């Protein structure tokens, strides 16, 4: 009996010790930077899960430099992020899709910014890789039509003629193809299906949406889910953020007359060559792009995901405005973009793009 009493006391002590240590290491005493920044307070953002890793890195570095401020980012998804921003619950949002004119979303966001103006700029560009698991076949090459046919289940076996045509000299086994897609609604799916429906509309006639349209494939939740599913199934092929591919094989996709790899530079180049989407960029500081997926220029990789940052030029409190401005300035700065490239595998904004985007952030009135 006594020994068990000691045990209870001991465990209580352990928990108490953790609690005390916890109260000790609160945000007042940062272990890191000197915190020379003058911004303070708490600001909250929410949105895209694609941006999550990058946002975490940005927040960490920024908080290191500014110890009086606490920034949080809820990866609730782009839809949730836009909704919370419009409702006024968050100071900024991350979204894989630009605010749309459906259901008056764009107008509502502009209304949220009341006295000020709506800011919407791209801040995160990431190539979507076609990952596959086929032992013995490295350097798989696919053209868009074959790719579409694989994913809409018209081609069901790896040794199909169409695949062999793209890969002369490769020994393709007769394994069954298991196409893996996202079971959750996602910006990655939306961007991939947009590519397919623009480049090979005769094969891919489905409506573009964040929900995968083809029934009967293997579905997994989240980027990690797709990667794990492809890794687990022999003969599986899927689409996921290139930075998460790990050891899996990555297919090269035909662009023009060359087969392109999903590198950050190639992804960023697509954005450079794409026009603004006039309908979705009504304001001075809304910069939404209509990606040119049909591009055939060298050095581009058109299966790319662009994620946006949404904010206002005016906020209710001066402190909030100052903190938001300082943080977003860091996000689009070359250092910030380099950090995201390192930590999340994204493509840094090109200098041309940065110069377009900077005035929007500078317009935030931190008075």
């Amino acid at each position, binding site marked *: 009996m006594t020994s*068990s009493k000691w045990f209870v006391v001991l465990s209580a002590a352990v*928990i108490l010790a953790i609690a005390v240590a916890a109260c000790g290491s*609160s945000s007042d005493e940062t272990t890191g930077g000197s915190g020379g920044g003058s911004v303070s307070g708490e600001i909250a953002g929410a949105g895209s899960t694609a941006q999550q890793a990058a946002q*975490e890195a940005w927040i960490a570095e920024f908080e290191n430099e500014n110890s009086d401020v606490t920034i*949080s980012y809820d990866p609730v998804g782009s839809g949730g992020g836009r909704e*919370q921003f419009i409702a006024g*619950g968050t100071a900024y949002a991350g979204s894989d899709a630009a605010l749309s004119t459906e259901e008056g979303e764009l107008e509502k966001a502009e209304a949220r910014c009341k006295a000020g103006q709506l800011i919407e700029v791209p801040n995160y560009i990431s190539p979507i890789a076609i990952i596959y698991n086929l032992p013995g076949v490295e350097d798989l090459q696919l053209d868009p039509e074959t790719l579409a046919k694989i994913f809409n289940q018209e081609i069901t076996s790896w040794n199909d003629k169409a695949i062999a045509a793209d890969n002369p000299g490769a020994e393709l086994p007769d394994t069954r193809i298991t196409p893996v897609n996202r079971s959750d609604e996602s910006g990655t799916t939306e961007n991939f299906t947009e590519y397919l429906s623009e480049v090979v509309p005769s094969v891919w006639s489905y409506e573009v949406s964040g929900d995968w349209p083809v029934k009967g494939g293997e579905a997994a939740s989240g980027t990690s889910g797709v990667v794990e599913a492809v890794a687990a199934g022999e003969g599986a092929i899927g689409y996921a953020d290139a930075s*998460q591919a790990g050891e899996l094989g990555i297919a090269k996709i035909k662009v023009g007359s060359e087969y392109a790899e999903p590198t950050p530079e190639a992804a960023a180049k697509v954005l450079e060559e794409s026009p603004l989407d006039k309908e979705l960029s009504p304001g001075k500081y809304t910069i939404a792009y209509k990606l040119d997926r049909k591009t055939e220029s060298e050095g581009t990789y058109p299966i790319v995901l662009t994620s946006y940052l949404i904010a206002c030029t005016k906020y209710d409190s001066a402190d909030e405005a100052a903190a938001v401005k300082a943080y977003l300035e860091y996000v689009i700065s070359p250092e910030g973009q380099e950090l995201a490239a390192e930590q999340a595998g994204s493509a840094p904004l090109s200098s041309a793009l940065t110069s377009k985007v900077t005035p929007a952030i500078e317009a935030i009135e931190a008075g």
Partner: protein
Amino acid sequence: MESASVTHSPALERPASLLASGAGWRRRAKDRLMTVLIAGAFALAMIPLISLVYEVTKRGIPGLSLAFFTEDARGVVGEGGGASHAIVGTLVITGVAAAISVPIGIMGAIYLNEYGQGRLRRALTFFVDVMTGIPSIVAGLFACALFELFFGPGIRLGVMGSVALSVLMIPIVIRSAEEVLKIVPNHLREAAYALGTPKWKTIVKVVLPTAFAGLVTGVMIAIARIVGETAPLLVTTGVVDSMNSDPFHGRMQNLAVYAYNEYRSPGVFKQAAYDKAWAAALTLIAIVMLLNVAARLVYRRYKTEIR
């Protein structure tokens, strides 16, 4: 006082004389067969447990370190940092949820079993049944809507998570408490009344102590159920990497959401993130194990036999 707790019923030791004389070989064979089957089923039920504990331990240990327990993730990029903010968050959120659910749940069970009659009782039984099936994410959305009603959109508090978890906990506490209270035989109550004890005192001094061990088990099951919940907390407590131990102010991280986030968005340093996720899971299990052990000790000290 002999034990007739969940541990063993000595009445079922086989008196050799009875068996030898009474039961034919067919019945003995059947007895042996059923014993083997039951033992086999138990072993089958244990296999997933062993596999789970093994996998979590194997994958979680690389992520554990002193830093894991003492540092939060503020200002940490990539490797390094810890989960102390998540650990404290889990303890606080679960603690508040239990503080809300256990009194309400047990009093509710007492109502159902000792006082209730007529419409209120029927309504309560009906609705508690319904409550057992609420998807955890719906509980979270409800708590979110409730608080946003009073505090405006975008509010994220630790206590919101506790309320969402209470919605999930209360039906379990009530149901298991009700079962346990039901088993307390009437003659104990009647004996107390016969001595002139008022009803409330009977409940507090006779019924509850008799059922105490079972009540503790029920509460432990309920706590275990909610401590690993992710979905409702994702939408109510928000995600933050700094320490916050105040449930009534600001976002609060917790181990389940922390693990889920590390798994879902590992960034470029995939292995370090996965390690952290498994380590967080291991810590969660350890916390529940500790609570369970404490409960068992309480149980063994207070168990009573029903004659």
